[in-house]
């Protein structure tokens, strides 16, 4: 009966979505201009202009902060490379990381800190204005890219690499151009995947039209748009009932069903976005890292995190977990590190204690799992044990999503209350049937992957190239016929 609420009023949003006409026009023009010349300098300039246009489409002043962040990363990484003195290099690196984090903290966590320490936000005055400054979209991603650049250059210099992959530039201006490009490359600018500097810089070079792997591009884009437009956008209409007061009228079984649907929705939304980003980058000759590898087949929490938002997991592992000592300093320290890293990862997703709790939820699961590693249940290869482990992981992960869907603790409590109190309400069949319609393709997607190495003999044809082509064709038709009401990607708000 009510309208959907937006991703949040606190965001300076990008109006150009991957599903917009304006985006397709920009993509077409950029693509046409890009392959006119093979020169790396020219092609980077084309992508840089397109990326800035994409980002600044509705809010040109967003470029000020993005420009500052890119300039900061350029200067600090350049100085680290140039500097001969170890201590000075370290100082530049610490400074670069600290300023990047300060920018992120100022824009993202100011209200949370203020509300936690003082109370509700002042309505006016300097402080009120300061705290009212909206969060520029994509800041969490480009800040992490900036940190990755600074740390990678510092590590390369410290390990004495004479031919650092980053060290191809001819002077400061060239470094600046490449850094701006690295931070702003439009497929990954708003919501990743987070690509490490050491993986991205070596790819910068002249690209040929003839080298485009069209099937790979088509596959990533079709699956990506299918997951986003057909699955996630349609499920988004149905999962609004998880929020109070809608949940008060849902039976317990219906709520469980919708919660599972939300689990599928958030996967489809973000994995869809990531695949679109990967497909678009491929169109211009760049390989972005995989971000999702069938996470819902995971039978352990550690496996889940090697399959879910892999680029963030790898970033946190390389730049936070390992520097903290990882698992090299004994079990207790390992547990603490896991809790700390996952809580920080949770907070990275959003400036709210519910996100921190979500991180802690996963950190605790990882720590408990580590404790149980040697037990029979954990090691058993019996089907029933595997199924139980899968159900446990899926259940815990799905329950955790309530903290994403309802970042207000009060609402989570209300939902839990409704799920408990409404046991007597009659199960309504209509909505679950429609949910199943959208969930089924995602389940099938995971199942096909699970059995790829040992397919049932009679169904082996399903794993053939031709069957994949037919499936992609059907998905393409579904994108035309069944796209839901376009909604911003959930991860845009992070």
């Amino acid at each position, binding site marked *: *009966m*009510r*309208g*959907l609420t937006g991703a949040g009023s606190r965001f300076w949003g990008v109006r150009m979505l991957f599903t917009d006409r304006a985006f397709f026009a920009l993509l077409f023009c950029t693509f046409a201009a890009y392959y006119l010349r093979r020169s790396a300098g020219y092609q980077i300039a084309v992508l840089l202009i397109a990326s800035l246009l994409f980002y600044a489409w509705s809010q040109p002043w967003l470029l000020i902060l993005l420009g500052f962040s890119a300039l900061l990363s350029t200067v600090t990484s350049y100085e680290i490379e140039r500097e001969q003195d170890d201590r000075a290099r370290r100082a530049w690196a610490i400074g670069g990381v600290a300023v990047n984090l300060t920018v992120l903290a100022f824009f993202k966590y100011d209200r949370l800190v203020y509300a936690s320490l003082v109370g509700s936000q002042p309505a006016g005055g300097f402080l009120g204005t300061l705290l009212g400054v909206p969060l520029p979209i994509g800041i969490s991603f480009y800040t992490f890219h900036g940190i990755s650049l600074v740390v990678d250059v510092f590590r390369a210099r410290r390990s004495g690499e004479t031919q650092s992959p980053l060290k191809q530039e001819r002077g400061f201006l060239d470094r600046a151009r490449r850094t701006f490009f690295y931070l702003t490359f439009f497929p990954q600018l708003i919501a990743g995947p987070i690509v490490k500097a050491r993986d991205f810089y070596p790819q910068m070079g002249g690209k040929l039209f003839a080298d485009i792997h*069209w*099937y790979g591009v*088509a596959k990533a884009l*079709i699956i990506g748009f299918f997951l986003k437009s057909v699955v996630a956008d*349609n499920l988004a*209409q*149905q999962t609004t009932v998880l929020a*109070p*007061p*809608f949940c*008060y*009228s849902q039976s317990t079984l219906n709520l469980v069903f919708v919660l599972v649907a939300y689990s599928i929705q958030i996967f489809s939304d973000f994995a869809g976005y990531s695949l679109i980003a990967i497909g678009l980058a491929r169109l211009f000759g760049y390989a972005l890292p995989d971000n999702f590898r069938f996470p819902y087949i995971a039978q352990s929490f550690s496996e889940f995190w090697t399959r879910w938002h892999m680029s963030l997991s790898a970033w946190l592992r390389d730049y936070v977990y390992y520097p903290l000592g990882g698992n090299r300093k004994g079990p207790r320290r390992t547990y603490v590190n896991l809790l700390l890293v996952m809580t920080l990862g949770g907070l990275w997703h959003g400036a709210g204690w519910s996100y921190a709790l979500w991180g802690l939820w996963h950190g605790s699961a990882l720590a408990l799992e580590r404790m149980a590693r040697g037990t029979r249940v954990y090691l058993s290869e019996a089907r029933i044990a595997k199924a139980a482990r899968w159900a446990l992981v899926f259940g815990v992960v799905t329950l955790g999503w309530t903290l994403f869907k309802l970042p207000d603790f009060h609402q989570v409590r209300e939902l839990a209350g409704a799920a408990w*109190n*409404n046991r007597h*309400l009659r199960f309504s*069949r*209509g909505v679950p*049937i*429609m949910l199943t*319609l*959208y969930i089924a393709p995602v389940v099938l997607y995971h199942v096909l992957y699970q059995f790829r190495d040992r397919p049932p003999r009679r169904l082996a044809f399903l794993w053939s*190239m*031709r069957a994949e*082509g*037919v499936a*992609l*064709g*059907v998905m*393409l*038709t*579904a994108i*035309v*016929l*069944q796209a839901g*009401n376009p909604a911003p990607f959930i991860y845009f708000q992070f």
Partner: protein
Amino acid sequence: MERPLLPVAVTAALSFAAYATFVQFAPFTVKVVQNQVDTNMMRAQNFLAASPDTVLVGSSLTFRLPTSLLEPQVANIGMVGGSSLTGLAIVDGSGQKPKLVLIESNLLERPLDKDAVQAQLRFPERFLRQHFRVFRTGYDPANLIWRGLTSLTHQTVADIVLTPQAARAFYLEQQQLKAHPPEPVNFQHNLQQTAALVASLEAKGIKVGFFELPINPGLMNSPADTAVRREVRRAFPSGRYCWLDLQIPGGAHTLDGVHLTLEDSAATTRKILAQRKNCF
């Protein structure tokens, strides 16, 4: 084209053509769709495809007025979560010439949804929808499956069932929302937009009228509703515009404070049908 892309293209073309042909010649129409957003779109598309002599524009309050009683003479493009302005802009931009447009005044503080208007009116979508059912919301696969399921299970349109806890929570939420008058700058802007659209319709020879749907008596005189009523009546006085009187003696029965029960919706719809003649 690389060889592996061929099955993709062929399958897409064949499956689309087969589905499009099926729905184009299917011997049924789709009236109930899977969710309220789709219903919003379907109603707007139905209006664009038909030639009703009266159009109701409004929010979810109008949305609940049963189309079974209104159609075919009266189209209902009340938008769930939306404003009368959105429906009004669709009518204005459509090129259709109904005799009368009736505007719900209750929630005119809500803004115009330009994206929704564009989605209905822009080329080539509108052209395609006009000629091919496959591009209409009601005929997408999920809605067709939904229609099939409701036919198979002989499900009739039932009213939304709210538990007492939900009804109370919705009511309290409404009470909170209506505790303050609407933000004046945005509200005045909406009124100006409404006036411009009304003038545009009148210039095309279309009559314009207004109605306020009854809600829970406890909320009718809330600061928000009082302010909206006063300003809308001032901007569109009853001497100049036709106003329907839809108040229910003894107070309206609602699900949640603002949305009428099926019985009161039906009674109100009958009043609209009777009174609209006075506006011609």
